[in-house]
């Protein structure tokens, strides 16, 4: 993730004011992603003990796998597409998530197999 995002100024620009740590859950596996000025500073793999995060985005491994196909199938191509299906959960500070929504969508889409 860090490699793909940090190499793409068109993604970094939308996260320029983002300095946060958020959680991504892929099934049972937890990741903490730290963003500094739009660059992915750190990707840590859990399990974690008493760590803080601003918001979490959780979905099953199977659903992420569909989301990350290139091209993704219809209805699996966007975080909000998963939200309408009820296949993703947004937790924590929704304000921060919504403030950086475009950046986050681009970050997740950048992981698609190329």
């Amino acid at each position, binding site marked *: 993730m860090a490699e793909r995002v940090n190499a793409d100024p068109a993604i970094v620009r939308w996260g320029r004011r983002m300095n946060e740590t958020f959680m991504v859950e892929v099934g049972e596996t937890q990741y903490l992603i730290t963003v500094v000025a739009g660059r992915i500073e750190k990707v840590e793999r859990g399990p974690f003990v008493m760590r803080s995060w601003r918001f979490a985005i959780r979905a099953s491994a199977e659903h992420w796998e569909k989301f990350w196909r290139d*091209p*993704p199938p*219809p209805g699996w191509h*966007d975080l909000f597409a998963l*939200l*309408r*299906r009820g296949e993703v959960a947004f937790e924590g500070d929704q*304000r921060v998530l*919504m403030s950086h929504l*475009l950046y986050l969508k681009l970050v997740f889409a950048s992981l698609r197999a190329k």
Partner: protein
Amino acid sequence: MRIEPIIGRYAHIELEGREHRVYFEEAGEGIPLLCLHTAGSDARQYRAVLNDAEITRRFRVVAFDMPWHGKSSPPAGWDKEEDYRLTTERYTGMIMSVARALGLERPVVMGCSIGGRIVLELALKHARELRALIGLQSGAFVERYYDPAWLDHPEVHGGRACGAVAYGLMSPLSPPSEVWETVWHYMQGGPGVFTGDLHFYQLEGDVRERIGAIDTSVCPLYLLTGEYDYSASPRDTQAVMDRVQGAKFSIMKGLGHFPMSENPEAFLDYLRPVLQEIHES
């Protein structure tokens, strides 16, 4: 240099007893075709239809910015009022008033998303005054799956958040230049306008119980839905088809929620045969 044949003008039109300055664009001659943009955006979405010589040879294409959207202002005194909110009655009245004011006689009305919804209402209430209806991304109702209050929040940049919502509704196969043009329109919306439109789309404008009464023998109804749309998905349009006899439905391969704007070329391939059929009837 290339200058497009589209002409944009301002009309002063009375809506709900108040004067409104409404911006509209038009091109072509023939059967009037009135185009309705999506929630929180404006008539620039129809730039390709307005620029298509094959269509404008036989159709007078008109696309207006709804009040509060694009270059149409809110009515004077808006600063002293409550939040902008779109309702079925307000939307229907606006469309019929604009059509009358611009002298569009028995127009074809084509709308997308909220426009695709109101087309169903027009089929119920104004079928005899209209030549045909084209619903793009039509669904009878969409239940709330995110909270649109975040799109109108002092600590969230409205332009960025609205742009992000629109971005995801498009197909990953659409050309990036047209996708980002569409995103930009959303980024330019006024505070609370997208949210106000979604009041109609996600709460008030539920036509599920009534669409069975649509009579397509009075006014033909065409439904075109992009397969990548998850807001008004092909399944939602199919649910309309199951209730409305005689409507015609095509799924647009590889397109998302804003077909006319996110991938104009692919969309026109679906629209032209529909307009051909309307022209011949």
